[in-house]
């Protein structure tokens, strides 16, 4: 059972709320202060990714963030309800971190259209790859429908 769960409609403004909440719960769970930025960034990335997917595939559904601070570790799970392969190909093929510089070769990136979304310059799976680069313990699991991004941080020794 998650200790704190946040559900929100797919709007960018709520991503900040989710970030803030993740930071507060992580602090309380004993995650070291030096890791709080990482928690905010990773949870924010996972939520931003989910917002993008929901805006395309499930605009009426809420995104679910579960924050668990009752065990030895702090666990954040972000669940979307889009197609489960919306952008996970990069991750699934094991490309992730190692190939990021390639993915990002500025010359091969799509030209950002005037009206496209602001992240459009980045390849699909980029958000997930950033998370994988940041957080040691990440699991991306297809759900039915959607994807669960599960990130774990050990509590600081105290």
């Amino acid at each position, binding site marked *: 059972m998650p200790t704190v769960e946040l559900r929100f409609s797919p709007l960018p403004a709520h*991503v900040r709320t989710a970030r803030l909440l993740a930071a507060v719960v992580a602090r309380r769970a004993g995650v070291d202060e030096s890791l709080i930025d990482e928690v905010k960034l990773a949870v924010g990335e996972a939520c931003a990714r989910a917002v993008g997917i929901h805006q395309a595939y499930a605009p009426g559904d809420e995104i679910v963030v579960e924050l668990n601070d009752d065990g030895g570790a702090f666990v954040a799970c972000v669940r979307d309800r889009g197609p489960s392969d919306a952008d996970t190909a990069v991750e699934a093929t094991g490309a992730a971190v190692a190939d990021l510089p390639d993915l990002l070769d500025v010359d091969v990136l799509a030209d950002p259209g005037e009206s496209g979304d602001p992240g459009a310059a980045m390849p699909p799976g980029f958000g997930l790859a950033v998370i994988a680069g940041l957080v040691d313990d990440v699991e991306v699991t297809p759900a039915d429908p959607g994807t669960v991004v599960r990130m774990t941080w050990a509590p600081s020794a105290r």
Partner: protein
Amino acid sequence: MDLSLSTRTEGNRTVVVVGGEIDVYTAPKLREQLIDLVSSGAYHLVVDMESVDFLDSTGLGVLVGGLKRVRAHDGSLRLVCTQERILKIFRITGLTKVFPIHATVEEAVSATD
């Protein structure tokens, strides 16, 4: 914290000072700013990120988009950043190879390729 933007001209460079959080919520404002600058003929941009508190991949996407736009006009986009937590994001994503990153605005403004 919201995004703050201000621009000034130094010689043939345009310095964009960004403050606050560049994220999925605020990135569209930065994107618009960069598009406006390029449309008005400013092709040599210096983005000062010293007052940025937070940067996510949407923000990186906007910077990459800006870089592509100025390159189409043989321009440049240089970053000013010494904050470890922001630099880390560029390193993780390999973007340190894509953007020239400087320690001061002066250095960025006087840099040549």
